[in-house]
């Protein structure tokens, strides 16, 4: 099973460490510049979307199949504990004070955890199922159950999914993988 792991200090692709210099928020930008580089929309994203975008790019590069061909049979399904907390906190700061009230649509749109699934669908032309499930805590058994259940959709043959959590710009963890229908 192809797998990518990223946290604030560590990056592995199929359990092999990926060389990098930066930590925290700068790590995601470094990974983008060194391994992707052709998708400037990256810089508009919230941290959860940046994390999911970079992790999915590394995963799909490791898969080594032709990219960007429209398909409906691959679902994108993530889980986490914090939903869109980083984006929510950032948006709240724009409305906290009556004297300094400047709500922004560009910030508000990311206050939904499933936006990252849409970012990955847009990048890869995936017309299949996209879903985001929030759990009280990370639970591998529940995640496995829900991912296996997703194959009950007869169109879904493959899932890009896993754990994708972010509490603030410098604290995040992704462990995502590609699953095929058994």
């Amino acid at each position, binding site marked *: 099973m192809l797998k990518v792991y990223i946290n604030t200090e560590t990056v592995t692709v199929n359990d092999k460490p990926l060389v990098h210099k930066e930590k925290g928020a700068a790590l995601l930008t470094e990974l983008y510049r060194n391994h992707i580089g052709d998708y400037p929309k990256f810089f508009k994203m919230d941290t959860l979307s940046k994390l999911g975008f970079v992790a999915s790019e590394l995963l799909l590069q490791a898969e080594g199949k032709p990219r960007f061909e429209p398909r*409906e049979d691959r679902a994108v399904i993530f889980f986490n504990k914090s939903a869109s907390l980083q984006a*929510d906190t950032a948006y709240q700061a724009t409305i906290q004070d009556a004297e300094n009230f400047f709500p922004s649509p560009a910030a508000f749109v990311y206050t939904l955890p499933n936006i990252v699934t849409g970012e990955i669908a847009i990048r890869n032309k995936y017309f299949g199922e996209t879903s985001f499930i*929030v759990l009280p805590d990370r639970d591998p058994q529940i995640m496995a159950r829900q991912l296996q259940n997703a194959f009950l959709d007869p169109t879904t043959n493959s899932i890009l999914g896993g754990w994708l959590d972010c509490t603030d710009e410098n604290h995040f963890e992704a462990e995502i993988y590609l699953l095929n229908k058994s």
Partner: protein
Amino acid sequence: MGGKRMIVSVAHNILSPLGMTSAENYAAVKASRSELKRHEGLWNLPEPFTASLMDREKVEDVFSEIADNKRYTFFEKIIILSAKRALEQTNIDPTSSKVLFILSTTKGNVFLLDKRETGFPKERVLLGVAARQMTEFFHNPNTPIVVSNACISGVCAQIEAMRNLESDAFDFVVTVGCDVQSAFIVSGFQSFKALSMESCKPFDANRTGLNLGDAAATIIYTRKDKITENEWVACRGAIRNDANHISGPSRTGEGSYRALKTAIGALNPDEIAFINAHGTATLYNDEMESVAIERAGLAQVPVNGLKGYFGHTMGAAGILETILSMCAIDDNNILATKGFDTIGVTHPLLFSNQNQPTDKKAFIKLLSGFGGCNAALLMAKGGASC
């Protein structure tokens, strides 16, 4: 019907400004009532807005009969109350390990991010922690799952319920959808210029945007081998992405079209009483839905939308609108699209601002949301139209 295992609704409830049972809400909608009102100065917001808001004090009066009001946020109170009122119609033991709770919400207790809110632990802003308040209230031993897929969450939660029953993981799933309005949500939609200052007008030529609303709604599903003709079956659902834009609907209705095609399957469209659309009354959403419905070959099926009664209830919408659509067919009725007058989308679909009779037994619930997501669900009374 017998022989084939089916996923069946065994009880439901709606809590909204129009009532505290499904029957009260259906009667109010059939009579064209709405609690959409203009609010000025509420929550210190600088701009007025029109929304359908629940009376917090009235909810506290009812909630005080079952638990201490101080222990729960308003969001938690109405998810507990709605689930409780649905469970009370059944013999289901919520303490059983065969019962799963699924919560559909977008923003839960987001108001707790406001620095002035000090009445509850900040961790209650986490959706899973909020959902745990409900499962702990019912002494349910299972970990709740929260579906948070923007405005399509309510249909996604029902699809997750169906899958957890089809796979035999559980025997009953209590599917609760809820969002409560706050300065956070209202200011965000205002910044998008998505809100209408007056009551919304789904699919109408003069529509100017959506209204927001509070609600909680619950459907309890189970799995059965044999059903009667009066039982409601959740036949098929699908979730599909536009792969186009995170906040703008697809011009080709790509995701909604694909979700509709999967939900219909081989069913003859003549058997469908109506499509209950998302119908937010924003320019782009309503246009996109008309494109998707026409493309899916459903131009001859009546279409309605219920946002003119409740506003957009976000995480509750998919469940609330599924329940009202079941109640409507139980009453041989296609509900009017309140606020609609003159067709304002490209495809001349069958919209009406009047209740209309029907003897058909199936409907489709359609939703779309930010992140390019779309969902469709086929429901059939008696299961014959599955």
